[in-house]
């Protein structure tokens, strides 16, 4: 029932039924702590949950997922509560868990941890990294190729280093096709003020300006604010590029779907599921697993078929990256 492109999950039952004390001894007990916003955000967190749910159905895992308080002050406590309740492995979703996972992992050396979007920082910690810049590079290639005005834009939700990765990749992608293209860049809020992910109106104003100035494709990495970007695109009869999941499918507004030329996919669900599977197979932490173009951890969605005509070009770019001919910068 969740968004994202997990695929394979079928009708879901109440997620946490059967969790807790009746768990079979020695069975797989997976704990997961979400980032702020928590379960049901139809985005990043839910993508992680889709992976967890898949582990439940495919691996017969006993799962427990916890959402943090609105101010995110209890991330570490959630991890410890899961650890104390006997869950192993435990996954923290979001780079904000980096610090807390480090400490918790040191306190519970017998438990395996994973953190999404942050590097491993302990012998029992697996870093689940995503090469957003590579996916964004492809988005940039698509945008530059498709742009008729040689002018594209990027709207970032919050000006932090994660979103800057998207920007860097996108810009590199655009420049690789048309070095002289104009690229408008706008962030909605500063680092530390996460409201930029929840401001469709601001996204709309920022994108509107870009379209008015002549941009015809705008890429967003701004959570719910992206909705405003799509609206601006629809009003200007231009195109936009979605992020994280295949937004042409997850956005339910029928008038907005056609403006989403493609979306940069970030397969958090795959990352989470693969980690659990590997754990079951006895894998230990201490390393990073990078989900990049090579393993299709990132990529472009094709729903709507709007980028089918430039598939060759995209595949070539992807091949160059996978082969290491191109190194995509992760900082602007």
């Amino acid at each position: 029932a969740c968004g994202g492109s997990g695929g394979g999950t079928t009708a879901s039952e109440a997620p946490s039924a059967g969790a807790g004390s009746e768990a079979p001894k020695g069975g797989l007990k997976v704990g997961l702590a979400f980032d702020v916003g928590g379960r049901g955000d139809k985005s990043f967190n839910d993508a992680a949950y889709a992976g967890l749910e898949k582990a439940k159905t495919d691996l017969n895992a006993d799962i427990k997922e916890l959402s943090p308080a609105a101010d995110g002050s209890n991330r570490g406590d959630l991890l410890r509560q899961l650890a104390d309740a006997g869950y192993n492995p435990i996954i923290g979703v979001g780079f904000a868990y980096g610090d807390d996972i480090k400490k918790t992992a040191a306190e519970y050396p017998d438990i395996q941890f994973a953190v999404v979007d942050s590097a491993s920082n302990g012998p029992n910690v697996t870093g689940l990294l995503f090469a957003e810049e590579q996916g964004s590079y492809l988005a940039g290639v698509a945008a530059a190729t498709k742009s008729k005005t040689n002018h594209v834009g990027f709207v970032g939700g919050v000006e932090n280093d994660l979103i800057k990765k998207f920007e860097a990749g996108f810009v590199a992608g655009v420049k690789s096709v048309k070095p002289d293209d104009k690229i408008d860049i706008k962030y909605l809020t500063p680092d530390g003020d996460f409201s930029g992910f929840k401001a469709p109106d601001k996204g709309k104003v920022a994108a509107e300006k870009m379209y008015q100035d002549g941009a015809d494709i705008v890429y967003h990495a701004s959570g719910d604010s992206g909705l405003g970007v799509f609206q601006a695109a629809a009003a200007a009869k231009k195109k936009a590029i979605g992020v994280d999941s295949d937004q042409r499918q997850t956005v339910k507004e029928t008038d907005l779907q056609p403006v989403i030329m493609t979306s940069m996919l970030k397969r958090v669900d795959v990352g989470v599921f693969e980690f659990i599977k590997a754990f079951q197979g006895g894998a230990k932490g201490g390393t990073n697993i990078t989900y990049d173009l090579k393993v299709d951890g990132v990529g472009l969605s094709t729903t709507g078929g709007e980028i089918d005509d430039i598939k060759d070009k995209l595949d070539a770019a992807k091949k160059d990256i996978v082969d290491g001919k191109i190194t995509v910068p992760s900082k602007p």
Partner: protein
Amino acid sequence: MTRLGKYHVALLGVAALILLMSLVRVVSGQNDITSSGTFAAALLLAVPIGLAGLGGLWAERAGVVNIGLEGMMVLGTWFAGWAGYQWGAVAALLAGLLGGALGGLIHAVATVTFGVDHIISGVAINLLGPGITRFLSEVFYKDGTAAADAGAGFTGSPAITSPAPSPSLPLLSDGPDLLGKLEGTHWFLLSDLAGILRGLTHEVNVLVILAVLLLPLTYFVLWRTAFGLRLRSAGENPWAAESLGVNVYRIKYIAVVISGAFAGLGGVFLVFVSTKYVEGQTQGRGFIGLAAMIFGNWRPGGLAIGSSLFGYASGLQLRSTGAITSFFLFGAVLLLAYLIIRVRRMLSPERPAELAARSAREYTLMAAAAAGTVVLFWLWLTVDQLPNEFVFITPHVLTLLVLLVASQRLRMPKADGVRYRRGEQH
């Protein structure tokens, strides 16, 4: 000064401002300063602030401080989203109004019936708003519900069906779009006027029109009707009102519930803009609205100025980082104008008595103004890209600066925030 005189001065002020903006635009080449897009964005961003402020105005004119606007607005957004995806825009409007009014009702019960400190009650409502809405999402939008299938999650509702229409002014801002054409020429003053007018008339959401109409309506109701007189008297001297047979409790209840409804309406507007409820989309606008109302001296006109200023600065900031640097030029020109006026007054033969002896302070002020002009001008010339963080704070800094400069004759309703109990005089 007579009423007519005041009105003329206001008009002159607006004209001078537009002239100045036009000048700065031409000199700096930042067309966004007066573009229709900026003004459309300003309107979009000012309306929810204005509606929240209007909510504050109604409550505080009746003597109840309403710091809970934010929470009421949050309730408005949730209910608008919930009703909107099922039954459309009109239902969203009504449900949002009711949601906000519910928050107002809680505030009224606490402050009017139980005499609780108004700030405590407001703070509690600011806690309750997000708590209740998150809870409702967790109950109504959980996996497996029809809403979840339609795209709802714990952090957002499905999109509302049949969104509200956004008409334009025919001929001028649509179709042939005469104003748009004129704006495109970038002529001095003419294009600026055209841009402003087009921004305010092109594809304006009906709720914007409604919200803007609410300002004169509020003025009419509060200052021109019997009910309004009673309401204001409850904020000025409830004991006097009581002694004349006015049911102060009832008036306060009505005012605070309407206050909540207006805050809720601000929430509805946000939902209309986003086409759905998004958790956290109010972003502190209740507080900004309260600030705009105080800025506007508890009056609809002042509130309109306060929220427009904030909306304009936010819109410009979101659209054009470059235009923000031209504020330096703007400030430099303003200071220069101030300096010229001062010097001329200084040199005029009939200077008023109180000025004569104050020359030392006068000179320091003028020196400071001159230095400021130079610094601002220099900043404008040298800085071409401000760090984003400094761009983001434009609206807030501007509000503070205007408050500092504007003479402080704010007068809040005398019995605002005062605990009133029937039969117990203060």
